[in-house]
């Protein structure tokens, strides 16, 4: 029965233009995003190193005017001088294709940068301090290159780097909006065909799972198609790049480098769970509000709660799971920093998303079960019994 019903839902979806438009839109997002990116020029490693040199010069200049009357400030100054020299060398090594030396020197620079942090960045203007997270990330990145004997890759929009940028851009409210749009009539459309759909001999849970499965399938298929087609297009235009190149993610309170392929798999798995959760949420909101527009407005409001609360300096952990829809920020660690919750990493997000799916479906089941009981009468009888006992 479940499969027969699912086949009908699938058939109905094929004739319905909305999923088709959303699916094509999702695929076209990747293509258009590549076209847009390929018209811009990414910052080269040489430019990055020149910028770093400028920052060091500026820091050292400012420190020259200060009294270095304590030992720590002197040590910091010396370290910065060493770092400046090493960063210059890095630029040279990169130009000469001496990648091993580039990496080796980069690791030494980071060691010194961490040393400066241990010295409390004494005398360094706050706006010129290298953030510790960035140092740790770069360390992981360079170590991964060294361990896997990989070359340093120039910043570009070759397929591997483009796909990382594209999925990161899609992650968050944009993807949530697409899902809410897809699910905004997941039940409500039946209201336009009540006498045909209402008396079908299938439980609400099975019906919901069937609808979620159908929506999930077309969204994930579109997403994967978008990634594959745009990746192929980017590879055709600018080259495939190296999918073994590292991307640094935040994990277990620290940073870890993984390959681009691994990263894309993690993102797609995250997207898959987010899709299931938002579709389940759409079923619940359709059930509660019976309105397609409410699905969008209420859904987006839920996801904006953590940011809005932070804006008014209220940081409550209870709202943090709603921010997990931005799986790219979870992976980069920026969400953990933004919400000041070091526990937020990929494992935390996946666990919470599974919990949210289960809780949402349990609420849906409870809502349906309660429709068979006169809740007011039950409460009335409980209060009546209590008052009788008191008397």
């Amino acid at each position, binding site marked *: *029965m479940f499969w*027969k019903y699912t086949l009908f839902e699938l058939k109905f979806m094929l004739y319905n233009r909305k999923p088709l438009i959303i699916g094509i839109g999702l695929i076209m997002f990747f293509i258009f995003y590549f076209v847009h990116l390929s018209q811009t020029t990414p910052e080269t490693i040489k430019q990055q190193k020149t910028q770093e040199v400028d920052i060091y010069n500026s820091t050292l200049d400012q420190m020259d005017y200060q009294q270095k009357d304590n030992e720590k400030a002197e040590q910091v100054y010396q370290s910065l001088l060493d770092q400046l020299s090493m960063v210059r060398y890095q630029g040279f090594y990169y130009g000469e294709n001496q990648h091993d030396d580039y990496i080796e020197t980069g690791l030494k620079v980071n060691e010194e940068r961490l040393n400066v942090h241990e010295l409390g960045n004494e005398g360094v203007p706050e706006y010129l301090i290298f953030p510790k997270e960035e140092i740790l990330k770069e360390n992981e990145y360079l170590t991964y290159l060294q361990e896997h004997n990989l070359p340093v890759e120039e910043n570009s929009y070759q397929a591997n780097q483009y796909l990382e940028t594209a999925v990161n851009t899609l992650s968050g409210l944009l993807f949530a909006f697409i899902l809410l749009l897809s699910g905004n009539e997941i039940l409500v459309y039946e209201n336009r065909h*009540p006498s*045909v759909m209402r*008396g079908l*001999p299938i439980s609400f849970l099975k019906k919901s799972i069937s609808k979620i499965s159908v929506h999930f399938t077309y969204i994930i298929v579109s997403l994967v198609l978008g990634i594959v087609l745009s990746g192929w297009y980017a590879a055709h235009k600018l080259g495939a790049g190296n999918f073994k190149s590292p991307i640094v993610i935040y994990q277990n309170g620290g940073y870890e480098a993984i390959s681009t392929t691994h990263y894309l798999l993690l993102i797609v798995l995250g997207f898959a769970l987010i899709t299931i959760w938002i579709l389940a949420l759409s079923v619940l909101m359709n059930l509660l509000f019976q309105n397609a527009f409410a699905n969008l407005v209420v859904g987006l409001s839920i996801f904006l709660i953590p940011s809005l609360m932070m804006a008014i300096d209220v940081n409550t952990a209870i709202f943090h799971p709603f921010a997990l829809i931005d799986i790219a920020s979870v992976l980069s660690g920026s969400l953990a920093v933004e919400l000041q919750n070091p526990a937020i990493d990929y494992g935390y997000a996946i666990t919470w998303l599974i919990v949210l799916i289960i809780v949402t479906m349990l609420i849906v089941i409870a809502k349906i079960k309660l429709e068979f009981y006169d809740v007011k009468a039950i409460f009335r009888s409980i209060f009546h019994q209590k008052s009788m006992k008191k008397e």
Partner: protein
Amino acid sequence: MLKIKDVSVSFKDHTVLDQLSLTAYEGEIIGLAAPNGTGKTTLFNVIANYLKPNEGTVVFNDQYEYKSEKDEVDIYKQLTPFPDQGDLFEELSGVDHLKLYANMWKGTSKHIKDIIKELNMESYVKNKVKTYSLGMRQRLCFGMMAAADSSIMLMDEVMNGLDVSNVALISEKLIEMKNNQKLMFVASHLLENLDLYADRVLFLKDGKIIHEHHIHDNHDTFIKVSLDPNRYNEFKQTYDLPEDHHYISDRLLCIPFSKLTLSEQTTWLERVIQFDEREFEIGTLGTLEYYEKYYHDSYIRK
């Protein structure tokens, strides 16, 4: 078997169904005759649990009530409400609709070919519903019920939009389904048509069943004469009419016939012939006559 026990439904101060009780059995067609707004659709909605009654219960096969979702699904496996033609999916074909109902109730759609043939739908059933006329849609809705082939069917205005030949076709099919032990509730405004296939017709008024017309057990014949109110009064003054006579819709006098002795029958026939030269008829009272009797004020003849 379906038992409706003391069902009451009220909307604010308006009582639509008032302590209504009814038992219906397999192999029975129950007609519902009442003007719009007298509770036919409400009764169907209560039977299908689309509407919760303020009081009372509906019991299926002495076993199932709408106490949980599981019970509801178990009941729905035996019950099919009639789809409204306005609710069909415009972009899907008739075959898609038939397959949905066949698969959901029977778990297979092998039998829909026969239904398509029986209901003469071959020429259009593969096209999208948006291209159908009213009659085509109505036949499809009936076809969906036939495809579901459940043991209980609720048919609200099943003959809507059908021409004479299709009314006859559906009537035949209803009789065939009744012979297959289906229990069917048929609400229809084609009152004379109900007499063809229904076993009993229920007349609803003020939330209650005011009359139950058993078509096959209806052996009482009447002399039926068309008389306007003036002629009726004149007739009444001239002859002492029996107490159980009917004067329906200010137009039809019905004098009990089968209960009378042969000499009394002859006497009344002579009186009618003498009084009125127009044609008269001897026969049982049909659904139409009862309808006019109970709903004369609100009845608009179709």
